[in-house]
């Protein structure tokens, strides 16, 4: 079994119009820029995207939105240093937004990966983000019931990968990547380096290969922050 494939283009080629796609990253850290750009080239549209943010500048997720491929965004914080692309699309009514508190977003994704259709959290109780949701009292405190979140595809940025899909991450670039890897039917990974089987210490594996479908090596992955400082625009 070898999950490695040759190119980012091949990695995303099976993503159809209308798919739900989780994209790892918190701002630029951990964002799989090359996979997102390959998805733009691939052309899939009407996507529902799950990400913590809504893109920055004109690369990565912002570029995907600018190319009008995203029908709906599920995120916690659609602001950034340069949020113009999302802001304009949102205010023009061209993109739907589901705003989810960040911890609830992370837990809904983990629940999707862990087979938990619903759970209770105190987060958002009594706020407008809990409107219409089932609430319940446990041990004298009020909680909101939240549903799992799953995806057809997840685009993940890892540091090391082996041919079975075992992954490590780099620093705070870990963020949403491991939980999104669990919650998608097809998890596509760009790794800075693909090592041989056994090249990752079993104690240091963060995402076990069972959650991974495809791995493509992207040795010199772009950082969104640096692209934006260089005022890059994709495509």
């Amino acid at each position: 079994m070898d999950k490695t494939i040759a190119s980012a283009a091949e990695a995303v080629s099976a993503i159809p119009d209308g798919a739900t796609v989780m994209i790892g990253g918190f701002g630029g850290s951990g964002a799989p820029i090359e996979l997102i750009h390959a998805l733009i080239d691939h052309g899939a549209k009407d996507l529902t995207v799950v990400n913590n943010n809504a893109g920055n500048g004109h690369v990565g997720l912002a570029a995907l939105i600018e190319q009008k491929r995203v029908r709906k965004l599920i995120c916690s914080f659609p602001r950034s240093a340069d949020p113009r692309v999302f802001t304009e699309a949102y205010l023009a009514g061209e993109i739907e937004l589901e705003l989810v508190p960040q911890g609830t977003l992370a837990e809904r994704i983990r629940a999707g990966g862990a087979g938990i259709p619903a759970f209770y959290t105190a987060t958002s109780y009594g706020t407008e983000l809990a409107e219409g949701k089932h609430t319940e009292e446990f041990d004298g405190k009020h909680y909101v019931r939240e549903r799992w979140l799953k995806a057809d595809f997840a685009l993940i940025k890892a540091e090391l990968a082996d041919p079975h899909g075992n992954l490590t991450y780099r620093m705070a670039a870990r963020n949403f990547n491991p939980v999104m890897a669990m919650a998608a039917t097809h998890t596509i990974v760009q790794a800075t380096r693909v090592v041989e089987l056994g090249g990752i210490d079993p104690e240091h594996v963060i995402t076990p290969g069972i959650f991974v479908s495809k791995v493509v090596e992207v040795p010199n992955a772009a950082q969104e922050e640096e692209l934006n400082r260089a005022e890059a625009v994709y495509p």
Partner: protein
Amino acid sequence: MSETMTDIDSIKLSNAQIAWRAAQDIEDGAYVNLGIGFPEMVAKFQPEGKQAIFHTENGVLDFGEAPKPGEEDWDCINAGKKAITIKPGTAFFHHADSFAMVRGGHLDVAILGAYEIAQTGDLANWSTGRGGVPAVGGAMDLVQSAKRVAVLTDHVTKKGEPKLVASCTLPLTGVGCVTRIYTSLAVVDVEGGRFVLREKIPAISFDELQALTGAPLRVEGDVADLICPEL
């Protein structure tokens, strides 16, 4: 009945042969959990060119074979508390992550033993209902969530009574969860609330097999010969 039992015992498959047959259905690259005891033998019979990746619910994926006696590391065990080894590709994780794999439907196959299997796919394999100390382990999690749930079992109990039944009499492990049953006499699928006979050993007739089964065996298309190597 005792005469039939003698016959059956002489022609039936051994546990190793049942495990061998189950192993033939595992796809290359499949993620598989093997129940404690006799299902563990499945790992030994993977066909040439197909390699399954084994999960043990105490937090190891893609582990290696048992170590030689005297070389055990008791921090490295499987769910049956037997010593295992690591190999290239092994990953360790904690119990909640391990059962996220199970509950989240990431296992392709779970293979377990059974006391009774109903034609509806209900499984009873954790409690004899006779008192004593009850123990469930991870069986209820595994059967509700793996993509395929396969059972390895003798076709009948030691007393010669059917283990494939119309409905279970013992406490259930899971409802409607079993997809395929590998017995000492046959391979039976559970489909649409019915047992569907796929294979039987040549030495037994359909009528004899039906007589040893507690619910109707449907036949859809050919029933293949169930032939296993001597093991």
